[in-house]
């Protein structure tokens, strides 16, 4: 991956390809994830999606994307461990496939410049009407998290799992903090972001390097002193499990969620063993949790595990009948114990590795996955070649899997139950 340094703290990666019928431009604004800035940045992503000085209303923005041949313009927020990302993305049809599209790339860069760097502001604050509306939209969105029971349970689990408040809230922000935001305070956050954030830019498609580099220069993103970024988070072991239960009305099923400590050092080779172990435990349809708990014992309708490499935890979540929670949890622990004792089928391990390699190779057929990988390489400063990646996955032994499974230790449990 070739990285261009546009300015201090401003990087560009170009991924030239004719495989796709689209052009992609993505910009990542990266800052430390702090309780004090996540909510404002989340609201910023709403504001930047719907207005700019040249496109004051959401209607103007919508009309402009229509003019750009149905371009998809989006803003979103993410978290990777201790970093918060406000990401602006644009996808367009490749000029080759539309009539009179030769100017499309230039127009897209112009539009993005307006949306990111020339907002609709008055006296050191965002336009009041737009601000009020978008603030309400974000509040609505945060309130509706609890409508999705699985998302809600996982957010509650996160809350009791992390010691550090910065990691407890969702990347979309916290409802009470959002309510307190003002147009002035969010504008301050905006200026801070534009001036101080690490800015990573990825452009993918049938493009030429020098044209893209010159278009990016046209944004005039100023040099900045790099913020201190430490993406990976690791937490010390707790002496006892933190537990919480909640009863909700109008739900039929219960949700059982567990957070397991899994301390694999960032970028360590052991991450490949952890990846295979997670897929074998609950990260794939061939996994022990899926095959044994769901298929054989019919205890849960949905069950999976997810390895959170960025924070050093492994999440297990199950949707099930309330009267089966205890039995299911017991079985989950038995399955983990079996993994730790090396009690698993070698044939399944071989299948799991093939499936991981299949997923990895399949990413090359998705522009968004390619962009995601480029951002992740820029953030972690680490790049693994396709050859090396496949080699490392294939090299994982059963002993490696058992060893990394032995690191699993339960730290917290959240259970969502129907009201009796």
């Amino acid at each position: 991956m070739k990285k261009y340094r546009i300015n201090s703290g401003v990087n560009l990666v170009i991924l030239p390809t004719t495989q796709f019928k689209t052009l992609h431009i993505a910009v990542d604004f990266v800052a430390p994830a702090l309780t004090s800035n996540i909510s404002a940045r989340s609201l910023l992503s709403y504001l930047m999606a719907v207005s700019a000085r040249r496109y004051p209303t959401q209607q103007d923005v919508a009309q402009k994307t229509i003019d750009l041949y149905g371009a998809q313009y989006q803003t979103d927020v993410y978290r990777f461990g201790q970093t918060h990302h406000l990401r602006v993305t644009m996808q367009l049809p490749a000029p080759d496939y539309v009539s009179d599209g030769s100017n499309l790339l230039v127009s897209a860069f112009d539009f993005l410049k307006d949306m990111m760097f020339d907002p609709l502001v008055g006296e050191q604050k965002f336009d009041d009407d737009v601000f009020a509306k978008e603030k309400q939209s974000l509040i609505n969105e945060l309130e509706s998290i609890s409508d999705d029971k699985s998302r809600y349970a996982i957010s509650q689990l996160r809350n009791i799992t992390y010691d550090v408040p910065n990691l407890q809230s969702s990347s979309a922000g916290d409802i009470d903090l959002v309510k307190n935001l003002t147009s002035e305070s969010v504008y301050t956050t905006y200026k801070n972001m534009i001036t101080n954030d690490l800015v990573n830019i990825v452009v993918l498609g049938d493009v030429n390097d020098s044209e893209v580099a010159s278009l990016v220069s046209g944004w005039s993103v100023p040099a900045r002193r790099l913020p201190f970024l430490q993406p990976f988070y690791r937490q010390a072991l707790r002496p006892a499990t933190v537990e919480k239960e909640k009863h909700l009305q109008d739900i039929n099923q219960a949700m059982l969620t567990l957070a397991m400590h899994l301390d694999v050092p960032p970028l360590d080779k052991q991450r490949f063993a952890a990846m295979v172990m997670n897929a074998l435990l609950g990260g794939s349809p061939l996994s022990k949790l899926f095959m044994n708990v769901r298929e054989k014992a019919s205890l849960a309708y949905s069950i999976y595990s997810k390895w959170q490499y960025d924070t050093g935890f492994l999440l297990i979540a199950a949707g099930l009948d309330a009267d089966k929670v205890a039995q299911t949890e017991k079985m989950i622990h038995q399955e983990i114990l079996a993994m730790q004792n090396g009690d698993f089928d070698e044939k399944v391990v071989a299948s799991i590795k093939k499936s991981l390699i299949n997923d990895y190779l399949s990413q090359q057929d998705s522009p968004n996955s390619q962009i995601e990988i480029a951002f992740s390489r820029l953030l972690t400063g680490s790049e693994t070649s396709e050859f090396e990646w496949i080699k490392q996955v294939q090299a994982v032994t059963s002993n490696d899997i058992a060893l990394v499974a032995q690191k699993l230790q339960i730290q917290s449990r959240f259970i969502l139950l129907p009201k009796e």
Partner: protein
Amino acid sequence: MLEKYYKQLKEKVLTETMPDGLKVVMVEKPDYHKTFAVLTTDYGSLDEKYQVGQGSPKKIPAGTAHFLEHKLFEKENEDAFTRFGQLGADANAFTNAYQTSYLFSTTQHVVPALQHLLQFVQTPYFSDKTVAKEQGIIGQEIQMYEDDPNWAVYMGILSMMYPESPMAHDIAGTQQSIATITPELLYDVHHAFYQPSQLTLQVIGHFDKLELLETISQTQQLFASNSSSVTRLTPNLQPAVNLSDTRQFNISRPKVAFGIRINGKPLRGTIVTKRTLAVDLMLDLLFGEQTDWYQKLYNKGIIDSEFDTSFDLIREYQFISIFAETTAYQALEKAIQTQINQYRSALKNQAHNFEQLKRATIGEGIQRLNSLENIALRGDDALSGANLFDKIELLQDLTFDDILVTADIIFQDAVLQRFVLQK
């Protein structure tokens, strides 16, 4: 082998019908690493009654198509997923109103994965024991859907538009309906709807077409091709009587759905896709984000980005649905009704906007073509025979007059129904 070349899209579709009636559709994508294959029968949750040859009509309990889809993976000694896993392929399946599809995606061992797909779908194994177990699993799945407010609001408006019809039934059925499923019933249904002449195989991606055809041809010889004619018996639709309904649900903000049911003769063939494209564009001209209508409501906080319109034309069912999350659903209803009442004046002088929107919709269609899954599944192949590439060409042929004519068909006797989900 039939070849159709789409010049502007630089895509080629190869079609072949095997001697036993299995239809094969291939799109080669040599730049890609993956191959995506889907085996589809045009049998879905709407099919609740059928007839084989001149035999007596048979009823199918609600939820059977979906149940059968689940059950087809389980064989006497192993699960069909296991073999896909050994080959490093990702497999899945889904059932909707009008089709059941079995699919896999892989970057390695395409030929054995394809053989396995054809074999497991055409080799049923159902027993009392496995059926009983599945009744438990699907029972839970139905409950999970019941906890999902989006699903509840969608089913709510469908039940109002098409009371007591298969469309009003959940794809997974109910606990009661699936309790009546037996192995014999599943064998009967499989025999009718999974014979080769009822199946279409789509393969898209990185492969050698001659090798694949040879594989398919050899694999199909394993199955008897006793072709019998199957007739889907369509229900007599009851009129929609209820204009407004509400259901209590524990959600933070009310979710509301509006429906407009369009009565008329069922359409067949390309006209289905043409009508759908025209209505979608017309809805965009009347209710899209770029309209003053939308902006006014957005600014008043009556709607937000959750607002969405859609049009479905599935066999004898034809309806518009509009979704929103809002406490001001009465104001929203009034605004929608007003816009419908004055659709002619609202569409007048929109020829230029139409051209722009059409260009953008074509652009969106082109962006969709990156994904092999989209090429296989986002076309109207099972509904009208028009694939995703045809859809883009049909869109290019659409004129503003088509929109005006379609608007008259849709809105002349439009009755707006409303379903609200709230605390």
